[in-house]
């Protein structure tokens, strides 16, 4: 493998891995903050138990997000130093702001939240988790400002052999950001919704200690998951339409639309040859892609072949077609799991409203197994966004091949790739073990049905608190 391939693979692995943790942090932070706010406002101990139970899982997940996040920041310089030289003037800014605005806020107030239960007043404690949640939302925003520049560069000029910022306002008000950001935000909400829904359902079926904790968690999570999944879908739809304008190749690649069509058909199932460059077999519904991209049945959607020809004319000879098997199937995996989540959340809401949560244990158990769905959608969403932009690292400005570090040998990179992959694999096992352990354990004695036992302070709490 050459350095480029290794660097790309490493970026894919570390990014997708990092993004296993981030959406849950974003979504669950807000949800736990809501729970604690209810506790402060109503003084109802059940909400406190909810806060503590979900807070514990939040913290385990958060730690993984932090440590894998540092790798992301370093990686741009380590593997992609030519890219860093080219865009640092612009790209470094949101990264630095993210650290200054978001990371300090999250980490400092999470420390106060974890360790401050008995040290700060109730209201301050709830404010701390809100600040953590706000910090993680800020973090999502600024990293998406950075990513949006890669997807649709704005506010820059090319001078001194690099892209230089001329309009910071254009960067943060870019329409791309304001479509991508809510999409990711609600993906986080959905992830947390299904996480809480699945684990609550498990405990409701098992009739574990603290039924009230899980009943209310389930109710909150239903609303959260349904609102999140519907909104993420609607915004995703807008995003698709926007792609039609700014990155038509990504859209065509997601649809495996080889030739320009008017009206454009939607592929239900397309097989290509192994190179990903040619269609072998396809089942299509006429008009649907037109409907999805322009809200009518008749508009023209450009196909891959025409776009390729256009790009050759504009940017010179080269292959401007992303790797179709990934764009095509990641799009379907994302949308498919999204639709399935809307359905599951809808049914769950019906059960809550009809008061029938207890009558369908099989469905409730199914919800536990639905927890991977948002993760599947999140990962595939990023695969589509990043692979679909290829061969560009900054759309229209710099090709990925030109961004890779020149001084790092493929062997060194391979060593780092293998090391990180092994370490990440081991950590995933540990993380899932801990999450499952604490999720399964349910509310502990301390947080259980009985009133707070204040005698259990100190050494008794040692160990698995």
């Amino acid at each position, binding site marked *: 493998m050459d350095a480029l391939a290794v660097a790309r693979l490493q970026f894919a692995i570390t990014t997708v891995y990092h993004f296993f943790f981030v959406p849950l942090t974003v979504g669950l932070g807000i949800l736990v903050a809501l729970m604690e706010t209810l506790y402060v406002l109503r003084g109802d101990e059940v909400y406190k138990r909810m806060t503590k139970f979900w807070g514990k899982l939040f913290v385990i997940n958060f730690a993984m997000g932090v440590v894998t996040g540092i790798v992301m920041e370093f990686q741009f310089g380590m593997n992609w130093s030519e890219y860093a030289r080219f865009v640092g003037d612009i790209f470094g800014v949101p990264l630095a702001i993210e650290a200054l605005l978001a*990371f*300090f806020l999250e980490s400092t107030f999470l420390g106060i939240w974890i360790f401050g239960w008995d040290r700060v007043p109730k209201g301050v404690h709830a404010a701390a988790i809100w600040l953590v949640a706000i910090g993680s939302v800020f973090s999502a925003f600024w990293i998406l400002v950075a990513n949006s520049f890669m997807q649709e560069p704005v506010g820059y000029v090319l001078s001194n052999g690099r892209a*230089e910022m001329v309009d910071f306002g254009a960067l943060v008000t870019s329409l791309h950001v304001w479509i991508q950001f809510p999409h990711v935000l609600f993906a986080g909400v959905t992830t947390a919704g299904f996480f809480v829904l699945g684990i609550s359902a498990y405990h409701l079926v098992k009739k574990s200690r603290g039924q009230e904790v899980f009943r209310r968690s389930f109710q909150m999570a239903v609303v959260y998951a349904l609102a999140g999944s519907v909104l993420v879908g609607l915004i995703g739809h807008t995003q698709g339409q926007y792609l039609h304008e700014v990155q038509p190749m990504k859209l065509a690649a997601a649809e495996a639309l080889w030739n320009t069509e008017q009206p454009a058909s939607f592929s239900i199932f397309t097989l290509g040859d192994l190179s990903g460059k040619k269609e072998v077999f396809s089942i299509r519904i006429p008009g649907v892609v037109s409907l999805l991209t322009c809200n009518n049945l008749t508009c023209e959607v450009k196909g891959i072949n025409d776009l390729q020809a256009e790009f050759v004319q504009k940017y010179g000879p080269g292959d401007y077609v992303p790797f179709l098997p990934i764009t095509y199937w990641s799009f379907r995996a994302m949308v498919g799991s999204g639709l399935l989540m809307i359905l599951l959340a809808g049914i769950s809401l019906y059960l809550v409203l009809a008061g029938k949560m207890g009558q369908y244990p099989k469905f409730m158990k199914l919800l536990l197994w639905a927890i991977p769905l948002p993760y599947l959608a999140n990962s595939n969403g990023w695969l589509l966004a990043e692979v679909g932009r290829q061969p560009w690292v900054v759309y229209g400005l710099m090709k990925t091949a030109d961004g890779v570090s020149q001084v790092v040998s493929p062997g060194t990179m391979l060593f780092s790739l293998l090391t990180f992959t092994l370490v990440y694999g081991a950590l995933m096992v540990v993380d899932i073990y801990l999450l499952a352990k604490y999720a399964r354990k349910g509310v502990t004695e301390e947080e259980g049905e009985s009133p707070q036992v204040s005698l259990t302070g100190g050494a008794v709490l040692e160990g698995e608190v």
Partner: protein
Amino acid sequence: MDLNTVWFVLVTVLFIGFFLLEGFDYGVGILLPFLGKDDTDRRVIINTIGPVWDGNEVWLITAGGAIFAAFPQWYATMFSGFYLALVLMLLALIGRGVGFEFRSKDRNPTWRALWDWLIFAGSLVPALLWGVAFGNLVRGVPIDANMQYVGSFWTLLNPYALLDGLAFVAIFGLHGAIFLSLKTKGELAERAHKAAMRFWLPAVVLIFAYVIASYFATDMFTRLGINPGPIPLGAGVALLATGWFIRQRHHGWAFVMTSLTIALSTITVTMGLYPRVMVSSLNPDWSLTIYNASSSPYTLRVMTIVALIFVPIVLLYQGWSYWIFRKRIGREDVLEY
């Protein structure tokens, strides 16, 4: 002062914050296996930095982000050039970060021993590597006319830089021991005090050896002169005073002194560098400076405004969090980690 210099100063400030705060975190991690006689002890030790270590680490992340934004060429050259060292550092930081969070979440002694070991190694390795990195920035590394690092991993491991690495470990160990003697009670605080006594002399020896080595290995002395002024001298005096305060059991003052040593030494190093950020050992003209490595004036302006607004806010709330957790921690307390 032009904006390039402002950012050189700001990056220095970020590194001072990082070394001051993560300095004692690393020290605490390095001391963990030696001062923690049983599991409860080790938990107390970890809990002294429990609420703050993550916020402290953000100083590093922000320093990295600031270098990327203000001096992208520096960021690109250093991060691609110091590649394997950074892989090691990242692995260390990963093990240490999840170690804090995970170690007490299972009772299994092997589990806990494993994380304790990772916390120890994860504190020692970055402390050492930051020293090595800073040593190399000043000493100079092979950088060619295109700002590319053309050395190898082994180039970084020269005796001078390794000495710097050891000096970092010693001063962070000392800083951490004093911090622990301030934050713990009873027998553990006594052990921390003894550790501080024991760390002081090696720290003095290593740091003065490092200063002498700098005379031969770098151009620090030609640049700063024989009488380098109050800042480097202040660092030396503070380090010597640390020993006296420890002996007098004025741990608060001793902590102020190690803090001063760290801050003033960092400033000394950056004074020796200025206006360079990475010295080229091949040709002085190929060194990276705050001018040839910097972002555009517009970007520096935007970043300056952002920093002027948010750095004070961060300092305020981080200071407040230290105030909340100002109490000593004992074996009888509720231990979250």
